């Protein structure tokens, strides 16, 4: 059975929308995307602390734990910091500008009593009604090289997440294999399995498994969306590391 997964590659034009909670615009895409949120009086947005670029004077910023210690720990293991900033629009509403830590794109997803799993580092912001918890992946996470915990975002509300490089969503209708380093997020309806790239030689397989290197892939099956990024962070880090200044004495 051959099923082609339909792809939705987003171009460079801004993405705008109005949700039940706020109005958003993602601009400067896809390389150095930023997110503009317009909040009505009393609206709340939660965001990764380092994400804020600027905000209206009418916004009230409170940093602190959210969702109790257990959840915060989960988030910490998910690669996000323990603290989430809470922005509340005061009288007259306000504007909030957010940007991700890496050069790349931002994606928007409305959760309607559904769940999205985010790769570590992908979380950016959410509105009330979205619950964030760390989801222990066990051995899967250990060998995917992407951290032991995925961030689980569930409930009903808006979720913004970021990628390294451009972001692309793929509708999986049967099976899809993605290199672990390129996964940004995926829907809960997909079964996910870390495996070795089919066709690798036996020795290569063992090497891949043990060193989390090339050839380790995620095999998604079932139906749902997967978001992938067009660049892989580790490749960049390896590249950049060679140019790191060293202290010669």
């Amino acid at each position, binding site marked *: 059975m051959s099923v082609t997964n339909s792809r939705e590659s987003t171009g460079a034009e801004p993405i705008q929308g109005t949700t039940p909670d706020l109005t958003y615009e993602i601009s400067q895409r896809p390389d150095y995307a930023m997110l503009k949120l317009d909040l009505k009086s009393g609206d709340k947005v939660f965001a990764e602390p380092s994400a804020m670029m600027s905000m209206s004077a009418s916004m009230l910023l409170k940093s602190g734990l959210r969702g109790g210690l257990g959840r915060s720990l989960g988030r910490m293991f998910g690669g996000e910091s323990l603290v989430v900033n809470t922005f509340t629009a005061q009288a007259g509403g306000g504007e909030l500008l957010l940007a991700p830590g890496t050069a790349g794109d931002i994606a928007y997803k*409305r959760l*309607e*009593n*559904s*769940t999205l*799993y985010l790769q570590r580092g992908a979380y950016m912001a959410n509105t009330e009604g979205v619950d964030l918890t760390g989801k222990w992946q*066990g*051995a*899967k996470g*250990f*060998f995917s090289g992407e951290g032991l915990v995925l961030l689980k975002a569930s409930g009903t509300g808006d979720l913004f997440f970021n990628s390294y490089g451009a972001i692309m969503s793929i*509708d999986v209708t049967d099976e899809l294999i993605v290199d672990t380093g390129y996964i940004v997020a*995926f*829907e*809960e*309806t*997909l*079964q*996910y*399995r870390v495996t070795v790239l089919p066709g690798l030689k036996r020795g290569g397989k*063992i090497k891949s*498994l*043990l060193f989390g290197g090339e050839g380790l892939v995620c095999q998604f*099956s*079932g*139906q*749902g*969306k997967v978001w992938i990024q067009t660049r892989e962070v580790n490749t960049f880090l390896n590249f950049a590391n060679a140019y790191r200044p*060293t*202290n*010669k*004495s």
Partner: protein
Amino acid sequence: MPALHQTADQQGVFVTQKFSGGVFHADLSDGRAGVEIELLHSHLCASTADGDAFVIPYEECQLEIGGYTGKMLFCRNADRSVTLFSEDKQFPKALALAAGGRLDDQLASQLSKAKGESRRGAIFSFGLVAATLIVLVSLYFGIRAGANRVTQSLPVSLDRELGKAAYQAMPKEGSEITDPLVTEPIQSIVDRLADHAKVEGMDFELHVIDSATVNAYCLPGGTMVVYTGLISAAESPGQLAAVISHEMAHATLRHGLSRISQTLGLTAAVSLLIGDTAGIMAAAEEFFTAASINSYSRQQETEADLEGVRMLHAAAIDPSGMPSLFELLKEEHGELPEALVWVSTHPDHASRIEETQNMIDSLPAKPYKPIDLDWEALKSRVAGDSTKKADVSNSSNESSADSTVDPSELEQENGS
């Protein structure tokens, strides 16, 4: 969690259950929506919050268990255009009941597949964890072996810095002798051997220290230290040259650096590689003390013996001084007096005699040139110096100015 409520059906009144879940359909924005699924008499009916309804007759149902948790039940219609799903624990059982046995086979096969999947996952995980442990253990040993390789790729200038820093930090056991009658003959041995050193760019810098301790060592980079006690103890210039060649070999084989990286581990090897030597230099000063400078591994000692023999042979110095030195040490110093530091750090004479003799036998015959020094003059000069020192420190054995301090005397001196 299923909400129980009653609905009227043509066939009478019976209980239906509602399960929260979702639907995939091309017409929906985003391709999916949340639904409430009802199990009716002949079909599943799912309604969205917007009022859209999707129906799948039981006989068309294609079941599949999956999702992130592996516990989600998916139902597809015949052309797969509609997919309903729910993760409610009661859903599979309720669906089987409502379908009146029509879906039992599919459900059973999906359940056993899901079970196999989780078992496969468990075995996979276990295998990976075990394999990782094996790799971590072998990595540890690999790193120790790798440290040696890293060491060999570092510039010799690093050895010199290490050696100089260590020499300055080391307590000297006596004053340095500048008398050319003592230093020049030793220097001539060092020079002859240095021409045949394995590593280029190593400057051997000789220090002769006035001390009864029978010892000599060569710090990384070529700082060579010879104690007058060794000169006194040696029976021939060849034996003295043998010790010197052995110690120089430790330096040219860069044993000191390997020892640092083996002891300090990968951190040291890496920081050496990236050029961050500040920490290593600090460690070196503590590392090479007079007491521990010669504590190399047995393998390194063998390497130094054989490399020493090679250097002697290359320099046309009779290498038989090496085994004869070990013979001397073996015969006369079964017990190790404290002064015979070199002996205590270089044990196992029997096998060393054998190994060095084997090497000498395998070398091509060569006319050896005698070491050009006045041995008796050197010995008496040194003995004079030692005596002076001994006189200053304490009035122990009365040794006449022209007698040589032989090891048995040293034993008595230091045994008390």
